[in-house]
């Protein structure tokens, strides 16, 4: 591993100053499960690594407020998946957090890191998109909030500006009854990145939200406001037409070692149909989450 300078700020302001001063030469270290791999293989060669884990307000914590659950950027997958309010209200996020890597990885990998790394295959991105997650971002110009859907640009690229860092992820409590599920396809259970990762939520106004990843440069969120997908009276053919339209943004890379584009597209449609069924069933079972 090439060497670098290491800073361990203790306030968000200090972190912002460092990131602003060094721009692209600085990288944020949260869980490190992606960063350290890339430091070692040389695909990232920052002159400065900014460890944000000793900043008290970013340290692991899930704050339940009146209208949102706020997950600090130092919170790891293990804690996301174990939190009673997250389990109750955002079960598809729990399903996704529980399949990221292994126990060892989930004890280190942060939810915010999974988002900021901006891998198209990030498993928590689809549920966060479906649940309407909002990022709290600190930067040289102060704090701003950004809908997650406006954050992803392409693989590894986000709309985060110079000197900015994500301090928390806010999940608004659902105002309606929702049934939701996260599903994925991998070559091997335990470690592998997803060949397709997808979340589907259906609410009691028959609005269906689907987010899917690993089939293009970024994860996508699509919404069926027409109520057709969630309508028990709709025919399979009608649903297929709607799904076809909603999943049209998928453009899997032909160069992936993980799966061919044909396989990915076939699995995307299959998983979407399955997830829709599960989400609809869960809604009907009266799950408030």
């Amino acid at each position, binding site marked *: *591993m090439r*060497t670098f300078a290491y800073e*361990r700020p203790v306030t968000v302001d200090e972190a912002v100053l460092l990131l602003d001063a060094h721009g692209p030469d600085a990288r944020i270290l949260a869980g490190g499960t992606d960063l*350290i791999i890339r430091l070692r293989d040389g695909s990232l060669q920052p002159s400065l690594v900014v460890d944000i884990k000793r900043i008290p307000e970013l340290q692991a914590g899930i704050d339940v407020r009146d209208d949102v659950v706020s997950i600090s950027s130092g919170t790891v997958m293990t804690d996301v998946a174990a939190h009673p309010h997250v389990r109750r209200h955002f079960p598809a996020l729990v399903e996704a957090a529980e399949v990221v890597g*292994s126990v*060892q990885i989930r*004890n*280190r990998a942060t939810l915010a890191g999974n988002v900021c790394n901006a891998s198209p295959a990030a498993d928590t991105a689809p549920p966060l998109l479906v649940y309407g997650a909002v990022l709290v971002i600190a930067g040289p110009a102060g704090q701003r909030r950004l809908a997650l859907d406006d954050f992803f640009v392409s693989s590894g690229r986000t709309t985060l500006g110079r000197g900015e860092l994500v301090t928390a992820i806010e999940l608004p409590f659902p105002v309606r009854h929702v049934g939701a599920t996260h599903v994925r396809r991998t070559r091997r259970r*335990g470690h592998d990145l997803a060949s397709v990762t997808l979340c589907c939520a259906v609410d009691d106004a028959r609005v269906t939200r689907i987010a899917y990843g690993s089939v293009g440069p970024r994860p996508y969120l699509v919404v069926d406001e027409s109520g057709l997908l969630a309508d028990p009276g709709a025919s399979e053919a009608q649903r297929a037409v709607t799904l076809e339209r909603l999943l049209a943004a998928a453009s899997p890379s032909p160069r992936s070692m993980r799966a061919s584009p044909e396989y990915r597209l076939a699995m995307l449609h299959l998983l979407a149909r399955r997830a829709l069924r599960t989400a609809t069933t869960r809604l009907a079972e009266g799950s408030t989450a």
Partner: protein
Amino acid sequence: MSDRLPIELTVNGRHRMLQVSPHHTLLEVLRDDLELTGTKECCLVGECGACTVRLEGRIVDSCLVLAVEADGREVTTVEGLGPEGSLNRLQQSFLDEGGVQCGFCIPGQVMAADDLLRRIPQPTVGQIEDGLAGNLCRCGCYEQIIAAVQAAAQEPES
């Protein structure tokens, strides 16, 4: 060449003061500076689990932790599991059940199994598979390893 940074660790109950380079991992410091070579270096991408240690009560892949990140923290390696110079119940189970063939992955397997039994004292086979999913065994001793964890669970440390 960057400056070396002073850090303090508690490793297997013993307080250690060290000077480390920022790019050195916890794995490198444990093996090279502290000569605790039970923790193995293998894939270096967090997939095989051979470098598993307990950091502040939770298992991690020590190849994906910078030594400076562990400053002020408590680390337990496979050397710190049993009483000095002897094996604990879980380690003995690995031997009794034939879970150890080439042995290279075993320190990591034992650390992950120890963590599992702390969280779930009587795990099902499915829970053992999930708990050890981050540890690969190229000899393919998964059946024996699962049997070893079950045996240790049935007869915990007195």
